[in-house]
């Protein structure tokens, strides 16, 4: 799959006015383009503080001393890099072409956002074979990242995402994006989510759904096969059954959201059918994940 096909042509340009916001204080050691809450060597003025012995004499603002006869230290905000990790679910349940393309677009877009702000991006697709993760910093790697995303094979993983994702995670991320469809049992999600906060300060799950999942269009007597587990269920679809399905779905979603809230994880449901630009420019903005 070529780059052009994955994201629109001037996509990077459009995304350039967005940046990822986070309140997480966990930062990398390297200098970056994000202002940090710490005081540092950036040009941005923060505040004044009275001089106390031991402070760097060079930082005394002599102009203020001239006016007030007191020593003040002028402080500046530090600029630090942000470490963003994107984790992509590649279990077979993501294999629906619409969903998969959307998930990849989402990963690519988020990656571009990170890279063009000179932040450190790491990316792993949860696979059965462990590949070397993508780990780059700087806008120059945008093309390479998109290429990496494009090169990911179609989802072929049959084992569960929640049980296999943890080893792919770096320990020191500022922001962790998890792109998944959340179609696994609440119990396994609970196990996964309770371990997740160790890995990053700000964890965001982007749940990809499709219209087909929200409101099944098929009717009559169908034998449904789970593409991930190959389980088969015979369903004679009736309004009663459909209602039960919706009920189950809603319940799953609610329990998932409660779990996320409990572990301080943000979750956002995005619909693949609504398109990547709607998601990027409306949903993520409204959720205040980007600005």
């Amino acid at each position, binding site marked *: 799959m070529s780059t052009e096909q994955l994201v629109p042509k001037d996509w990077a340009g459009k995304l350039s006015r967005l940046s990822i916001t986070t309140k997480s204080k966990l930062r990398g050691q390297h200098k970056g383009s994000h202002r940090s809450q710490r005081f540092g060597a950036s040009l941005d003025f923060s505040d004044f503080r009275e001089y106390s012995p031991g402070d760097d004499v060079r930082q005394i603002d002599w102009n203020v001393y001239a006016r007030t006869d007191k020593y003040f230290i002028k402080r500046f905000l530090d600029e630090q890099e942000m470490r963003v990790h994107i984790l992509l679910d590649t279990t077979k*349940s*993501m*294999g*629906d072409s619409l*969903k998969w393309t959307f998930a990849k677009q989402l990963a690519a877009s988020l990656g571009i956002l990170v890279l063009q702000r000179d932040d450190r991006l790491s990316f792993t697709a949860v696979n059965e074979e462990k590949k070397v993760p993508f780990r780059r910093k700087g806008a120059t790697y945008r093309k390479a990242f998109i290429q990496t995303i494009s090169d990911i094979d179609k989802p072929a993983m049959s084992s569960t995402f929640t049980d296999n994702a943890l080893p792919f995670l770096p320990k020191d991320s500022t922001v962790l994006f998890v792109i998944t*469809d959340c*179609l*696994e*049992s609440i119990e396994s999600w609970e196990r996964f989510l309770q371990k997740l906060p160790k890995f990053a300060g700000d964890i965001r799950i982007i749940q990809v759904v*499709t219209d*087909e*999942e929200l409101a*099944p269009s*098929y009717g*009559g*007597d*169908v*034998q*449904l*096969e*789970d*593409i*991930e*587990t190959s*389980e*088969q*269920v*015979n*369903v*004679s679809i009736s309004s009663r*059954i459909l209602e*039960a*399905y919706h*009920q*189950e*779905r809603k319940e*799953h979603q609610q329990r998932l959201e409660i779990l996320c809230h409990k572990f301080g994880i943000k979750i956002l449901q995005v619909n693949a059918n609504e398109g990547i630009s709607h998601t990027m420019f409306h949903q993520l903005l409204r959720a205040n994940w980007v600005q």
Partner: protein
Amino acid sequence: MYAWTAIFPIAVLLYYFFRKKYVKKSVSSTLFWQEAMKETKASPYLQHLQRNALFYLQMLAMLLLVLALLQPYWKTKAIAGEQIVFIVDTSATMKVDANNSTSLFEQHRSKMLELVEQLSGKPLTLITTGNEPAVLLRQEKNIEQMIKEIKKLEINYEAENMSKSLDFAQSFFQDKATSVYIFTDELERQSLPLQHENVSWNVEALTVDIKNASIKRFGATETANGISTLVQLENQSDKEITTELEISNEEKKLVTEVVKLPPKETITLSFDELVNSSYLRANIDIQDSYLLDNENIVFMADQLSNIFIDSSIHSLVRTAFQSLDINVSSVPPEQVGLLKEEGIMVTNQFGIDIDNENPVLYIGRNDASPKEVNGKVQTTESPLFAFADLKDIYVSSVYPPIDGYTTIATIGDDPFIQTSPSGDIIILADIQMTDWPLSPTFPLFMWGVKENLSSGSDYLGTFTPNERKPLSLGALNEWEIYTMNDNYEYTIENGGKFVAPSEPGLYVLRSKGAEKNLSVILPQEEKVIDKGTSYKVNGQQVNAEGDYQVHSFVPYILILLILLFVIEWEVQRRRGFTS
């Protein structure tokens, strides 16, 4: 017989064709579907049943099949014998109130319907009693037909004539083992033809005590001082009955008298000097079990039944009347004018002054001499010729006609038979002048004459129920029969086909403005009701074999099986064919 069971395999086949087909469909996850479908699951025991439903269902189907092969059945009691004969008494006494205002007849009817259910395919013959026993069902095997006929049965009020019906029934035995059921009020064991060895007799009789008072006889004669009546009342029960006897005519009550009737006794009452009326009605006001015999009607206009023949008339005339079973008396010619008794006079003494106003038939006239004629006899439309066609008779000579009389038959241009304004009839020829007596129409004509002369009134007489009796009402007219309350009953084509109505009472015959009355009364033996006993006389050769009716369980099992198959399909359909 079991051809209808073919519907089962067809149903299964149809079900197979129309069963649901599953369309394969891949989805991202069946997580929610499984949850949605799981809702039916209940206890582990039920889950086990659910999981092994097919096994259990098939097991059950196998067991049922084995059971069906054993051909299980249950027995119910059936009527013994190869064939069944019902003899149903339809006489008036069957109307007796046997039990809480259900008549004995209705009781028997339900008993018959009950028995029909136990026939188990044996042929049924249904005979009703009466003057002419009727076979309503002849070796019938169709149960629906039987039920239909039994429901149609009606009381015809005739005397039962049980011996006739019994004789009739015997013609159906044909040496087969036969069960005869007699539905009547009372029948003595002696009157059964017990000589048949392979016939068993079952008599269903009136078994409850009844209370009945009856007007046994009621007669009335006109005397110089009015009407004298005689009433005979009978109490047929064991208790004394007090009732009110009432005699009335068409307008008002004439006599009311309270009468005490001692048990099992008959009393006779007479009343004289009653007002002249056209009819009298006697009834007793009592609510007993049998209401039909509580009323009796007598018409005052009695038919003239005697015929007096002038002894100078040819003896063939006398023979003709006698052949009709009519009372004939000879009267010497000189006494013809002096006769005091009522009756029809036959003479040739035309112009004689007859004392009482008896009607007269003149044959020839002794006051004139005949002249020769030659020609064919032609008749007008008169009730006299309803049964007698005079076309082929030869008449050599006739007497001159009488002025003012109506000619009803001619020979050529000469009058042959005339009627007087007062109703007398004259034949203008001697018997010797014609070959008429040799023709069969002669006695028929004489009968017509008698009927014509005697029915001076419009009263036809008293009949027993359904009595057949030719009446000279005229051949061409249709007569409609009405009850006294102007309810139409039926129509007869002419007098020759007259059949009296079955229900006792007064009736009116109407045709083109003419009206005639008649009354139907119960036969004397139908006024007596006795309690009988129900009993059974078994023929020696009727064994208990076939005493039971076998009902098969197989059709029910088959129905269960088809149900099971359907359930199995349903289970398989839900489960899917792979698992």
